[in-house]
């Protein structure tokens, strides 16, 4: 964009969130909050058994309660579409998707088995609580530990799954190595638990068309699902999500509140709202319980001789969910002998689902703790050890990186943290009665771009509206798109409105993979440039136009002016152009697609380095994370304020993963026992101390036109491992299964 300084250059600046006032005043409307006339309420009934058959639903009793309209179950729900493919959403893994209320079979604990609809929420909730259902229980298996030797390589993975590739001869290299380590690393099931409960408000219009306000990260994915399952046209099922109260991957696939509310609305011909309970939020997908083994050996000079990384994670019996858990170990460090393996095993659980940095959060925890163990075995400082094994190219893909400033992340992170004052030996630092430990780790994540479209339209009064069916779940989409649009057309932020989350808008990918900034951002820029081109054409037609003969490259749109780059005093006022043009508005659509040539030539990734300090009370076993420095190379930063918030949130997630978060199953019942927010522990304010975020400058001309790499997932990587390594440094004890509960240290 424009090179000269001006006050409409917003990209890289840190304005407050444009949607912030709506959020801090409570005006922002989330899916379960839309007021529609004659609304009725559905409450979901969940299965208490993990596997078996529903014998009988005794609906009669609750149907006789005043206010109860219907009890929907497999006994009376009309058959929807017949084929699996109708239920397959855009991001479904291989297999046969779960169909709510389809038959009498129970496949997982907390499976939705009925929907009670009543004219008030209170009556629906009461009726659901007393609905009697008989089940025949069958033997279930929910423990991945029982599948240690029964895993298989995933056959049909989901999109984005890459079977890991090996190279050299790792076994032999490790056998001959100077120093060796081999350990197992484990974390249990985790649930996304966004604060907003999954909810859908379906507005049934008099003509039978539906407007569906659904909590989702992809309105188009939901529309596609609803139209295929219920045989509706797109015109009959508009899906809207203006604000998403957190998702972290849980909203990538349509959730069952969508199916149930649409089904009920179509059957009852009424508007319906279905909101899940917090307990039910533990039945919509999770980060899978994963077992990993890491083996490494080093040469006398501290370089890696060989590396083996093997992972086994759970999936459901009906879908083959897969994650790229081990692939990162083949690319983060230089090593010629690498053996990787990834297996899954089916259990009687619901299908796992992508959760913030899926695969990488799991794999990098194991890799980066193992790297620390290896550094200690070789007697090396953990940063020094990583620098000795710095990967200059992507050895798995055999490609150069489009950009990689990880070395700078190590340097700036270490400097800010004061790493050079760290004694190598564990248990060598104290503060009062507490042991102090310093640890570090890092991560790598894909810098992806997807096809996306946007539409820009400027009216005679100089107001610009840009739309794209993208999502906002707190990442800052509204704000950064407004910044890009304003800068591209040289308008003040207040003159620009960016709208999203509506299937009537141009197509955008699901809001995940940290690709929204790159994909939708590029589309927004392109659409605005197309409008700019039209404006320039009009401007050239004006009497005495100083822009006559100028092409788009010769001009810049700044401060409400179109001016010549070479002679900025030669300009026309944008609003005059619009007035003179006589058009009520000037608009353009644009679609941005990734550059396949660059993708074939370069490995595109973001990197980070994390440094953490913990204080451990050895008598009580309590651990406090007192300081974290997270240094990231993410290409261009569009808005340091919202980007920093994403990293701060990621660090909180990392602290949570390291010390608190785990869904505990009682395998006798095949049931999650802590499915609520008082027993599923996540950090609160008192758990969080100093967090420093450093964005290392990084220019990347190849990754996408904006040069951005995304940050929502990368920031989490390395955090849990750095804390784990710091706990070892403090105590001399290595805990290899997360979270590090107090009792594991005592």
């Amino acid at each position, binding site marked *: 964009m424009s090179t000269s300084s001006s006050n409409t250059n917003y990209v890289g600046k840190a304005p407050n969130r444009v949607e912030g*006032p709506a959020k801090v005043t409570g005006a922002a409307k989330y899916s379960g909050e839309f007021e529609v006339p004659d609304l009725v309420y559905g409450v979901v009934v969940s299965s208490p058994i993990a596997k078996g058959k529903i014998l009988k639903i005794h609906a009669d009793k609750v149907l006789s309660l005043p206010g109860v309209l219907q009890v929907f179950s497999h006994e009376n729900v009309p058959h929807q579409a017949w084929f699996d493919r109708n239920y397959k959403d855009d991001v479904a893994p291989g297999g046969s998707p779960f169909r709510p209320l389809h038959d009498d079979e129970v496949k997982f604990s907390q499976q939705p088995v009925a929907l009670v609809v009543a004219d008030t929420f209170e009556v629906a909730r009461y009726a659901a609580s007393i609905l009697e259902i008989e089940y025949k229980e069958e033997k279930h298996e929910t423990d991945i530990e029982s599948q240690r030797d029964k895993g298989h390589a995933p056959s049909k993975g989901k999109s984005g799954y890459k079977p890991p590739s090996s190279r050299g001869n790792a076994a032999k290299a490790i056998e001959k190595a100077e120093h060796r380590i081999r350990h197992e690393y484990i974390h249990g099931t985790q649930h996304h638990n966004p604060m907003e409960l999954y909810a859908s408000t379906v507005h049934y219009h008099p003509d039978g068309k539906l407007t569906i306000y659904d909590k989702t990260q992809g309105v188009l994915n939901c529309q596609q699902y609803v139209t295929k399952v219920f045989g509706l046209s797109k015109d009959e099922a508009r899906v809207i999500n203006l604000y998403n109260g957190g998702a972290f991957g849980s909203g990538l696939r349509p959730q069952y509140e969508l199916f149930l509310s649409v089904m009920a609305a179509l059957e009852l011909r009424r508007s319906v709202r279905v909101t899940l309970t*917090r307990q039910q939020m533990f039945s919509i997908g999770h980060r899978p319980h994963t077992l990993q083994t890491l083996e490494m050996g080093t040469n006398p000079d501290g370089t890696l001789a060989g590396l083996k990384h093997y992972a086994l994670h759970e999936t459901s019996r009906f879908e083959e969910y897969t994650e790229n858990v081990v692939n990162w170990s083949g690319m983060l460090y230089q090593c010629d002998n690498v053996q990787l393996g990834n297996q899954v095993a089916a259990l009687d659980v619901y299908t796992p689902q992508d959760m913030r940095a899926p695969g990488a959060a799991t794999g990098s925890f194991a890799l980066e703790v193992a790297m620390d163990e290896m550094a200690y075995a070789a007697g090396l400082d953990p940063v020094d050890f990583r620098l000795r094994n710095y990967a200059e190219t992507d050895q798995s893909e055999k490609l150069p990186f489009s950009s990689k400033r990880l070395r700078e992340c190590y340097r700036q992170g270490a400097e800010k943290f004061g790493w050079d004052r760290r004694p190598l030996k564990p248990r060598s630092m104290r503060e009062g009665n507490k042991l102090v430990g310093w640890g570090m780790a890092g991560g790598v994540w894909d810098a992806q771009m997807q096809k996306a479209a946007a539409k820009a339209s400027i009216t005679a009064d100089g107001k610009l509206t840009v739309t794209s069916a993208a999502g906002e779940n707190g990442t800052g989409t509204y704000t950064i798109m407004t910044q890009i649009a304003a800068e591209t057309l040289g308008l003040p932020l207040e003159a620009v409105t960016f709208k999203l989350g509506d299937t009537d808008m141009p197509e955008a990918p699901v809001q995940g993979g940290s690709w929204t900034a790159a994909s939708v951002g590029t589309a927004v820029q392109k659409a605005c440039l197309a409008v700019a081109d039209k404006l320039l054409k009009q401007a050239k037609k004006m009497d005495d136009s100083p822009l006559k003969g100028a092409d788009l490259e010769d001009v810049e749109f700044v401060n409400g002016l179109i001016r010549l780059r070479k002679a900025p005093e030669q300009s026309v006022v944008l609003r005059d152009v619009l007035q003179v043009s006589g058009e009520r508005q000037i608009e353009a659509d644009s679609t941005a697609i990734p550059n396949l040539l660059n993708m074939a030539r370069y490995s595109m990734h973001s990197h980070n380095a994390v440094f953490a300090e913990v204080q451990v009370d050895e008598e009580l076993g309590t651990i406090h994370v007192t300081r974290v420095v997270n240094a990231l190379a993410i290409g261009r930063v569009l808005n340091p304020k919202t980007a920093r918030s994403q990293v701060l*949130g990621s660090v909180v*997630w990392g602290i949570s993963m390291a010390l608190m978060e785990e869904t505990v199953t009682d395998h006798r019942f095949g049931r999650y026992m802590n499915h609520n927010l008082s027993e599923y522990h996540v950090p609160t304010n008192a758990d969080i101390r100093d967090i420093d975020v450093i964005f290392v400058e990084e220019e990347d001309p190849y990754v996408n036109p904006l040069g951005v790499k995304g940050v929502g997932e990368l920031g989490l990587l390395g955090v849990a491992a750095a804390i784990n390594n710091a706990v070892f440094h403090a105590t001399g004890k290595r805990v290899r299964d997360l979270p590090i509960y107090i009792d594991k240290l005592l």
Partner: protein
Amino acid sequence: MSTVSTSSAADDQLRPPVPPSSVTLRINGEDRTLHIAPWTTLLDALREYAGLTGTKKGCDHGQCGSCTVLVDGKRINSCLTLAALQEGSDITTIEGLGQEGQLHPLQQAFLDHDAFQCGYCTPGQICSAQGLINEGKARTEDEIRELMSGNICRCGAYVGILNAVKEVVDAQQASRR
């Protein structure tokens, strides 16, 4: 295998729900008469009957703080009280603190410090912060952290929340001096 049967409906005669009646609540300085059943929580009364959806539901069990409102100046979890019990109390929700264009100092501070991401926990955080200021307890950063810990933020905006609350607490202390 065994047969399981759920629910408490062993007694053959189900008790029908108690019908709705009129309850008058004083919300944000205004009397609102709502037609609600006696078992309606204050949270549901606000969200589903009074059209005040700024107050959020994150758990319905008093575990998350999303539903925090001020009752007679004190912060409470509105999911843990029945609306009918609050007749005669002075209820303040996020909508009563300030509006767009006329932000309350806490709302402005949350905006300036980017003390949220998705915004879902935010109304509860802000009401809780106002409650904490009313209590006059929090002075240091550690006290604020501790006293704001009834409000979970899954987006992890705690650093911003601390700084926002601190700024307003400090400003109020300075003006009192």
